[in-house]
């Protein structure tokens, strides 16, 4: 089956530095692949290069049609891109969509109807005549998505489209985007640093670190079982060497069993209630830092010299408020740790 998007030996240079070096990446028709990675990993660069918007070396093909001299516009018209910044032109929301349709040579008579349909589908039909500065961030991004989908692209590039939105709007729009992807069946490549976004939208995940693919696989597999320490750290796991892990009773004696290190997901570290904290596998820990996390609080802990992190839901804040230096008891679920 022809890949919706096929990238081979894709390289982008900035000055003398290679900022992107992807040997091979395919997206199947109807599939959504998320490119995850920390800031500066090259996610947007990969997306822009694949969308033929910045110069790159290597081979790019969209539904088997290779990119080449003079084919850029034709291939770009097979795709649409939604950026972090909605990037609406200084005209009404409706005219923004009609402008995109005009570029795609959609007959004039059809444009208004299609613009109306997509504005309605994205829930912003009431804002059809509003200009960009009159729209909220969420509304502008909805118009941007409507503009991208109205031209019935065969492939969709999503460059961190929700990262500029507040938490509630983002959560709602991620859900709506999933429904849109399923409904239209369009293949997509999504750049994001948000694991939750990838978990909801993507069939597969590619983790990019320093411009190279560090891990690739099914979304659940990658998010649950990072393959390297750098991927594990990016995904929020605590990484311990095997001695520290063994000392905490997390299994295996030494590296003979396979890995040299252990990745502990924050969800595997449970804070114990007063009643539970005398159990045999409970560990003493000291709170090092209290940080924000999606939907809760992340506690950086020192457990017998090992750095671990635990995440607790916002509801737990009604019971306790932690501060650096506080003593707590924790239990680590050995079944959830990953040997690297």
């Amino acid at each position, binding site marked *: 089956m022809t890949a919706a998007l096929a990238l081979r030996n894709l390289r982008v240079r900035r000055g003398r530095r290679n900022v992107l070096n992807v040997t091979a990446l395919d997206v199947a028709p109807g599939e959504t692949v998320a490119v995850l990675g920390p800031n500066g990993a090259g996610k947007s660069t990969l997306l*822009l290069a694949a*969308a033929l*918007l*910045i110069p790159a070396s290597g081979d790019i093909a969209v539904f088997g049609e290779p990119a080449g001299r003079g084919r850029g*516009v034709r291939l*770009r*018209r097979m*795709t*649409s*891109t939604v*950026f972090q*910044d909605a*990037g609406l*032109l*200084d005209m009404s929301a409706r005219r923004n969509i009609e*402008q*995109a349709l005009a*570029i*795609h040579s959609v007959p004039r008579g059809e444009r208004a109807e299609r613009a109306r349909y997509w504005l309605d589908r994205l829930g912003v039909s009431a804002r059809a005549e509003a*200009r960009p500065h009159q729209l909220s961030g969420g509304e502008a991004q909805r118009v941007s998505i409507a*503009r991208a989908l109205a*031209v019935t692209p065969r492939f969709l*590039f999503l460059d961190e489209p929700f990262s500029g939105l507040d938490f509630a709007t983002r959560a709602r729009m991620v859900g709506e985007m999933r429904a849109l992807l399923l409904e239209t069946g369009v293949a997509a490549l999504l750049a994001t640093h948000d694991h939750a976004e990838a978990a909801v939208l993507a069939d597969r995940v590619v983790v990019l670190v320093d411009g190279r693919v560090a891990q690739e696989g099914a979304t659940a597999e990658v998010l649950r079982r990072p393959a390297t320490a750098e991927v594990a750290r990016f995904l929020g796991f605590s990484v311990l060497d095997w001695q520290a892990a063994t000392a905490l009773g997390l299994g295996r004696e030494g590296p003979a069993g396979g890995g040299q290190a252990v990745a502990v997901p924050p969800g595997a570290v449970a804070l114990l209630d007063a009643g539970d904290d005398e159990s045999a596998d409970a560990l003493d820990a000291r709170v090092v830092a209290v940080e924000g996390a999606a939907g809760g609080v992340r506690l950086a802990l020192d457990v017998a010299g090992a750095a671990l992190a635990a995440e607790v839901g916002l509801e737990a804040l009604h019971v306790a408020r932690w501060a650096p230096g506080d003593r707590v008891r924790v239990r680590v679920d050995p079944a959830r740790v990953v040997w690297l």
Partner: protein
Amino acid sequence: MDLIVEAVQEAWRLLRTGDNAIYEITLRTAVITGFSTLVAALIGLPLGLWVALGRFPGQRAFVSLANAGTGMPPVVAGLVVAMLLWRSGPLGALGLIYTPYAIVVAQALIATPIIVAVTAGAVMALPPTLHLQIRAMGAGSTRTLWLVAREARLPILVAVMAGFGSVVSEVGASMMVGGNLSGETRVLTTAAVLEVSQGNFGTALALGFILLAMIVAVAAILTGVQYRARRR
């Protein structure tokens, strides 16, 4: 004091009675500066867009050159054009020296760097991803340029107005390449210089009022456009 009062009275009389010579000079000035601004815009707008959006070696040096060109002394532009169009010069065979065409060329040389620099600055001030967004919509090069220019239309209008302002008020280049020939190349500024040198302050003042009125009219149009855009 009498000199000023008499000059104002004379200027008012000339304007009120519709002195033919003055209105002929005014019309010629409008046509010549209009054409030179048009030529400068036709060259300067695409060049400014290209400088802002393109990637080529020496881009920064080119922008610096355009920025420096905004302060080009009219006499220098006039001198360059005069040497090119002089009868024994490289383009002397065209026979353009001391014609309105020579003034248009010299004034376009003055206004073009202003239009290039202001246009490039305006486009560079747009969100950096805007032209990527437009290309991502599937636009080809020409439509991308058009839509980017549309986004920067107000500052681009300012660029054209600034170009017009620079040529309508210059005197050195027009004098040098036009020769201030009565009925042929005499424009408001060169005429005003001549009238002052002959002590005809009333006529010079009338010419000055018309020149000011032209600039105020252009500024009023610009302000109107700006306010209309702000209200939307």
